[in-house]
């Protein structure tokens, strides 16, 4: 707070400084969570690999027609993680697969977050029939079993990268909406929201400028947990043959491994690495999300 004592700062300047200070505080608190930092480190490695995929392995390695390795060959000095049923290097597939898995997980989460935050804000902030209907719809959506719904939607829409993102996005928002709703309900009773109303702030102003910024931390913590779920769902849907057949993801690798009988032939290098990658990435997002939740949610912080 001492650095704010400098005179002649505009309101905007002040707000930015305060926000920076709060980010720094959050980061310091986050750093104390060893598991959260470990998650962040794992995630950074995967993001770097995904971004640097063209440098690490040529995309020609994904082309079935150019593959010249042995069929389901065991790991060797040339193919570190062996080859798949088409003679492609499993390592190359893994590296390029990280792109699709992360892309689908993140994009689906964005959709899910936008819908969930909107529904949660509206159902928490507005009383009357709007609030009641949005709350009911959220509750109803929540009891519909997720995977059968996703399978149905994915089958109707047909396989494709964009479609699988849509499917995961529009089926996974209800839990976020409930969380945001409960946060909104408690924030809208605060004095500053009342003040905003007293000096004539409209509903959208109150919601956009006062409620939303205060639920954002929870949205953010929830986002990382949602990404974890979205990546798991992508893997499962791809495994069931509902992914984009033209692109390699960890899920589609596991699907082809299962289809060609890598389990019974003992071709472990085709089954274990993609699974471990999924587990690591999902675990990383979960750990980060949990640490963030504890940092940002005062109720949980008191527990430590």
């Amino acid at each position, binding site marked *: 707070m001492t650095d704010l004592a400098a005179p002649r700062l505009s309101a905007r300047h002040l707000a930015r400084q305060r926000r920076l200070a709060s980010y720094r505080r959050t980061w310091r608190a986050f750093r104390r969570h060893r598991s959260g930092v470990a998650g962040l480190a794992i995630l950074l490695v995967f993001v770097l690999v995904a971004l640097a995929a063209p440098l690490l392995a040529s995309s020609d390695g994904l082309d079935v027609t150019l593959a010249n390795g042995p069929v389901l060959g065991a790991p060797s000095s040339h193919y570190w993680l062996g080859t798949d049923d088409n003679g492609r290097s499993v390592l190359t597939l893994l590296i390029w697969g990280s792109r699709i898995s992360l892309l689908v997980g993140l994009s689906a989460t964005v959709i899910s977050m936008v819908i969930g935050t909107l529904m949660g804000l509206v159902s928490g902030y507005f009383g009357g029939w709007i609030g009641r209907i949005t709350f009911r719809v959220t509750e109803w959506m929540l*009891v519909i079993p997720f995977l059968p719904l996703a399978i149905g939607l994915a089958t109707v829409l047909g396989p494709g990268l964009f479609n699988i993102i849509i499917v995961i996005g529009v089926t996974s928002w209800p839990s976020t909406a409930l969380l945001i709703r409960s946060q909104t309900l408690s924030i809208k009773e605060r004095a500053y929201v009342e003040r905003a109303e007293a000096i004539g702030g409209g509903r959208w102003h109150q919601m956009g400028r006062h409620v939303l910024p205060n639920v954002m931390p929870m949205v953010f913590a929830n986002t990382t947990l949602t990404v974890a779920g979205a990546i798991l769902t992508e893997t499962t849907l791809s495994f069931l043959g509902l992914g984009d057949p033209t692109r390699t993801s960890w899920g589609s690798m596991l699907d082809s491994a299962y289809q060609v009988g890598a389990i019974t032939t003992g071709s472990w290098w085709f089954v274990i690495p993609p699974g471990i990658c999924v587990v690591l990435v999902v675990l990383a997002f979960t750990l980060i999300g949990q640490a963030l939740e504890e940092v940002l949610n005062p109720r949980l912080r008191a527990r430590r």
Partner: protein
Amino acid sequence: MSLVADPGLVADSEEPGARSRGRGYGSYVVAKVLGSVGSLLFMLLVNFFLFRVLPGNAAQTLGRGRLNTPAQVAAFNKAYGLNHSVLDQFWIFLKSTAHGDLGLSVKYRLPVSQLIVDRLWPTLLLVGVSTILSTLIGVYLGIRGAWNRGSVFDKVSTGTSLTLYAMPEWWLGLMLIAGLGVGFAFVPGLFPTGGLHSPDIVDTNSVHGILDTIWHLTLPVITLTLAYLAEYSLIMRSSLLDELGEDYLQTARAKGLRDVVVRNRHAVRNALLPTTTVIALNIGFVVSGAITIETVFSIPGLGQLSTEAISTPDFAVLQGTFLVASAGVIGANLIANLIYGWLDPRVRT
């Protein structure tokens, strides 16, 4: 382990609310039943919208390109009632669903309702056993972990739970098949890799047949139990942690109660509350697990029925299994809510 089913817990918790039960519970039941009817109708609407409206030209999707002449399309539309308005179609859909008519499977040429009845038992068996096992073990692990927070047991159990939670349950199944079903290196396969019965079993209801089924179900049940217990132990742990700072525990200790009594009679009873809600809400998650595990272990249940329908695609079957799964979840939720409201007057407000 006995904490969940301890009859003492149930009997005791009735006392505080016994006086107000007569009035409060009736309206609670009505509200919950109405809520479930609402969910059921909403689910039917989603179901109808998903499979009948969203595909656009149903004659094209459902007929899968085999309808070429306008006459064929017209006949198809008439047979499936597509010549009516959308509202009328929804009404017809509701009526036939209420009569148990879920349409005809393109693949099996059989009524979907019959397919579902045939496949129901293996799924119920698998999901039922795994849910009971995972709830008991998960709740036990959660209690022990939270009570001795920071201990080695807690760290190992939380770490394992988080890892299992991050794992696609069918991948865990594949690993178990590879390890214990197929065998590796010098270890022979101990369990069958799939199916529900050995081919040489004639009478599946004989002692030998039942043992054979148990032997076949061991790996899938282990897989599902591990997949579910991760979530339950994490929830139980965090809800018990929430209770640890409360004053009533201090009071209980000040009274001189033994640690075990403080835990089981006071802390756990309150912590079970949020856990039960989450477990009830997670029945949908249980359904998802059953779908993939049945596929991986070739168990002829509802899950396998629906994943087999994906490649055809057999929309009537997908619609039917979706309907049954959702209705099951809604029903289970309602039952959980009713029991819960009966046991704990606090949730009736």
